[in-house]
């Protein structure tokens, strides 16, 4: 149904009828600003992904990162081209597994040594980064997608 010829006489035209083709083949009418100035529809890839080649989707399992807005089953966009900073939510390699954690760089405080740690919601113990267990950041979580259905 992409040419005007497809509309037989008396065919219902309206909400339930076939949609009118956006551009007519014959210029029997005036141009319409709405057609002349169409823009491309937003593509979620462009909106949310900064580095196409370095971004991966992951599914979160568990709810230890609720405080950062990540629930069980959420889809995460993970960008490997970004450098993690203090406060970044990252995918880290811990004991050969991929884990979601928040990266914190903290100075020495009460009963706390200065250093870098990977934290999750209490009561999950933070993972201290030491020379024996160096930090391995897999990627930086840029976006959390929640499905409400």
């Amino acid at each position, binding site marked *: 149904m992409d040419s005007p010829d497809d509309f037989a006489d008396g065919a219902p035209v309206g909400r339930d009828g076939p949609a009118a083709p956006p551009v007519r083949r014959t210029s029997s009418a005036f141009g319409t600003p709405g057609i002349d100035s169409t823009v491309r529809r937003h593509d979620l*890839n462009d909106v949310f*992904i900064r*580095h*196409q*080649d*370095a*971004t*991966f*989707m*992951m*599914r*979160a*399992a*568990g*709810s*230890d*990162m609720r405080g950062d807005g*990540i629930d*069980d089953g959420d*889809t*995460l*966009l*993970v960008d*490997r*081209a970004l450098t993690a900073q203090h406060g970044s939510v990252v*995918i880290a*390699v811990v*004991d*050969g*597994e*991929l*884990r*979601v954690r928040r990266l914190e760089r903290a100075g020495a405080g009460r009963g706390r040594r200065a250093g870098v740690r990977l934290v*999750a919601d209490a009561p*999950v113990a933070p993972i201290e980064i030491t020379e024996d267990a160096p930090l*391995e950041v*897999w990627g930086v979580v840029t976006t959390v997608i929640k499905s409400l259905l």
Partner: protein
Amino acid sequence: MYALIDGNNFYVSCERVFAPRLLGKPVVVLSSNDGACIARSNEAKDLGVKMAQPWFQVRRLEKTAGLIAVSANHELYGDMSARMMAIEARYAPRQEIYSIDESFLDFDGVRDDLVAVGRHMRAAILQETGIPTSVGFGATKTLAKLANNIAKTADRKPGSYPAGLAQVCDFGRLPRDELDALFAATDVGAVWGVGRKTTERLKAGGVHTVLDLLRADITTLRRQFSVVLEKRCASCTAPRACRSTMRRRHASRSSCRARSARPSRRSTASSRPSASSPRARPSACASKAASPAPSASTS
């Protein structure tokens, strides 16, 4: 200058990106129906697992040496390949994707320090995709392949070649005598297009290393082996010689009726070198972000 970039143990490296526990362990990727090993980690190579070796022959290593076998996930490899190729394409004006994990870049006219370019590219691919690669630069594609082979071997077996050539190797930067020393240390079978049988015959004739091949009489090579070998040999010495040989080959083909009537033999010989690794084309079907979604545990 051409560059050849390829992924180290590509399928295994792809699996390791999403399963870091496989790092440092002997890993093989098995073909469809888990028939044969189609990719081996360096640790698995050290255990003696051969390319395309049937799984039942090495299965005992699972218990005795901790060998880990993974079934092939070709969708994943295709997607990772597309990412890798896209990153490589940033570095040169022309790219020829040669297999799922190999591509040639044409650096003709580029005057940068190619080793620095190679290292930058390698680091970008490693950071953005997690795949370790090797980069070889040479005046011809054959030389780029050979340089890549040396870059990879120098990285995998320290001491086999000068350590400075590991990961990224640029023949264009080496003086003639150093290049000859490299060629003398490289088995003739490492040359692109010199397969197992040809290697055997060459060695029987006293040609053991790449240097021997270059010093062999080129007309004898053509008579005893093939124009293809002559071409390979020529493209190891000078790119111009390579081109003229190719032209001659095409001329003789079109003027020889017997051969053009039976083109299959010659075209088989001149097609790609023996495919010991599967040469799947990178698939363009998967969207960049929609790679298979592995899960990351928060607990």
